[in-house]
């Protein structure tokens, strides 16, 4: 990680000093452990605060949406985030030439702070230490060692797409990453496993998770692809939702949001990590990614490709249609 930070320093410094961009978007340490915050690097002295590590848990692309077209901005991104930026570029929300992408290769993935808090039974930790793959968390009256794989975001655990596909500057893969072997697994292993359950079990799982939802909209607002000026849940004419905390309202919201992200979601899981209730419905989104791949052979989102639901082929499969006999 230190290697990456050093290379980032050099790149960002040159961008800022040569005034190629107005600012570079990265992360700095926040006021709480494992909670970094977006850093707007406008001056060279800001660079010292820049960090890069396995708990930079927001998708910074979200913060580009507010900026006007034509403003040059540098941004430090991992590949899943670069792909979400590609979606926005494809959908004409952001101009490619406005953005200077600094691509960073990803090692194991990002820590999901909700998983940490679940493993600690909701107790507060004030300190953590990293030792290889062991993370030691300390709080009042306890100390617990947790393995990295137990707190990684689910999508990261099964990710095979770790090297930036679109960038202006690329940080070279550090040696420590090269040691990580690409294990032989199916990218959609967890979806396949989940599909083996009975419908009742699957329904019970989603029901249990979504009952916790308070409709606070943190997931929607953390997602860079949710950029509608007026979200369907906020629409008043017609009013689809009354936002009472009935389970059906929550279910409908999350299902509709998932459909809106079909073929667009890149699995950065910023939504899951932003959820204050620790709801885990990443499978819903992952299922959609698997589906677009199986059904329409569209695997990963590429620059300039049409969106999955915004395009069609005449011979798309249609075995689900009711036949009249």
């Amino acid at each position, binding site marked *: 990680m230190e290697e990456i930070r050093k290379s980032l320093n050099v790149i960002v410094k040159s961008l800022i000093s040569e005034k190629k961009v107005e600012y570079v978007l990265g992360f700095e340490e926040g006021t*709480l452990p494992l909670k970094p*915050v977006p850093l707007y690097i406008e001056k060279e002295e800001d660079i010292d605060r820049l960090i890069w590590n396995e708990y930079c848990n927001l998708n910074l692309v979200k913060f580009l949406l507010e900026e006007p077209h034509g403003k040059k901005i540098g941004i430090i991104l991992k590949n899943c985030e670069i792909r979400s930026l590609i979606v926005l570029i494809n959908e004409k929300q952001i101009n490619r030439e406005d953005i200077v992408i600094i691509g960073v290769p990803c090692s194991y993935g990002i820590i999901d702070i909700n998983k940490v*808090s679940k493993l600690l039974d909701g107790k*507060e930790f004030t300190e953590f230490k990293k030792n290889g793959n062991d993370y030691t968390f300390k709080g009042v009256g306890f100390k617990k060692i947790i393995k990295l794989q137990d707190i990684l975001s689910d999508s990261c655990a099964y990710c095979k797409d770790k090297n930036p596909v679109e960038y202006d500057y690329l940080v070279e893969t550090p040696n420590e990453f090269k040691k990580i072997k690409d294990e032989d697994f199916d990218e959609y292993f967890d979806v396949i496993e989940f599909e083996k359950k009975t419908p009742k079990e699957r329904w019970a799982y989603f029901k249990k998770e979504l009952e916790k939802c308070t409709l606070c*909209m943190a997931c929607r607002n953390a997602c860079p692809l949710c950029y509608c000026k007026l979200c369907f849940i906020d629409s008043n004419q017609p009013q689809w939702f*009354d*936002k009472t905390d009935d389970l059906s309202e929550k279910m409908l919201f999350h299902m509709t949001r998932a459909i809106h992200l079909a073929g667009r979601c890149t699995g950065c899981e910023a939504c899951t990590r932003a959820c204050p209730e620790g709801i885990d419905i990443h499978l819903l989104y992952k299922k959609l990614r698997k589906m677009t791949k199986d059904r329409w052979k569209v695997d990963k989102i590429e620059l300039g490709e049409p969106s999955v639901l915004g395009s069609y082929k005449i011979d798309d499969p249609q075995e689900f249609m009711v036949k009249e006999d």
Partner: protein
Amino acid sequence: MVKKRKKKKEKQENQNNQKNQDNPKDQQYSIEKIIPKDKFDSLIKGLYKDFKLIVPKEAENEIEFDYLDPENEKYQFPEYQNLRVSPKKFLFPQKEVLYSFEKEGTGIKIKEKEEKIDDQIIFGIRSCDARSYKILDTFFSSGKYSDPYYFSKRNKTLLIGLACNDPMSTCFCTSVGGAPFSSEGLDAILYDLGDNYIFKIISEKGIIFEKYVKEYPDVNKVDLKKKEELATSARGKIQFEINLDNIEKDLDSLFESDIWTKVARRCLSCGACSYVCPTCHCFDVQDKSDKSGGKRVRIWDNCQSSIFTLEASGHNPRNSGKERTRQRIYHKFNYYLKNYKILGCVGCGRCIKVCPTNRDLRESLKIVVETAEKA
């Protein structure tokens, strides 16, 4: 003698605070009992005969306030510093039916909500949450109209606190006029001394508890001394202190300041902070209906959402994150002081913990105070 010393001590503790939380009524009721922890369950069982109990309970992956059924379980407080979600929902639920109506031909018949509310005790709340009820009481009773739905529950509710031995890293109650051992707003309080609890009756309403604790011995000096020590140590554990004496004036001068753009820059405009906040009380009203009738419900709303103030004409007075962020801080730290002479924040730090982008209220306050000082 003991009492005098205590008062002095607390006074010392409070000298930095803008508001003295020492309740003068405290002194009238000198019921302070020692309850050994192994007898605690029988106290709970005794209370349960006459009250519904809301206690911190182990839930999946965390501890939550919930109704207790002590017949099937032996109750002890689980270990907790403070809970992630405030106990606000028991008096001000996320969804509350205001009334229902039936359609009769072209006519309408309104049916008032019939709700049987039992006497209940919210047990084991921390001092900050106890103060939050005081703020909600003030707000919901303010002005010409008092809120019948809140008070129908509030008037049936007693609060027994559990003094806070281990404040969290995000706690800042001492900066907003509270203290980990404050008994403000409570009817009775428990002090955890390790093997025993001190049970102290605070308010007039709390006298009702006398009969449940009669059998237990009175406190002695040693226990009280221990309690004082714990109070001092708890206060010492609070890591953040800021002087908010002039916050009202400071904010008055900073309304047009550009600090709000900076403070709001990282806000995602989600409602996480206001949903966990023990004092946030804004709500939305919605109708639900079908062919034969319907009901009107009120649900929590939050001022960070862009549609909160969106008018039907399309005009939105608080259109950007900057204005909404400013509104939340002004509401708690300026408008509250102007209208009710109290702060609208109890310093529980929940919003800091829950924020996905780590927008830290303490940092925002620091920026405000520092900017005002410079100006």
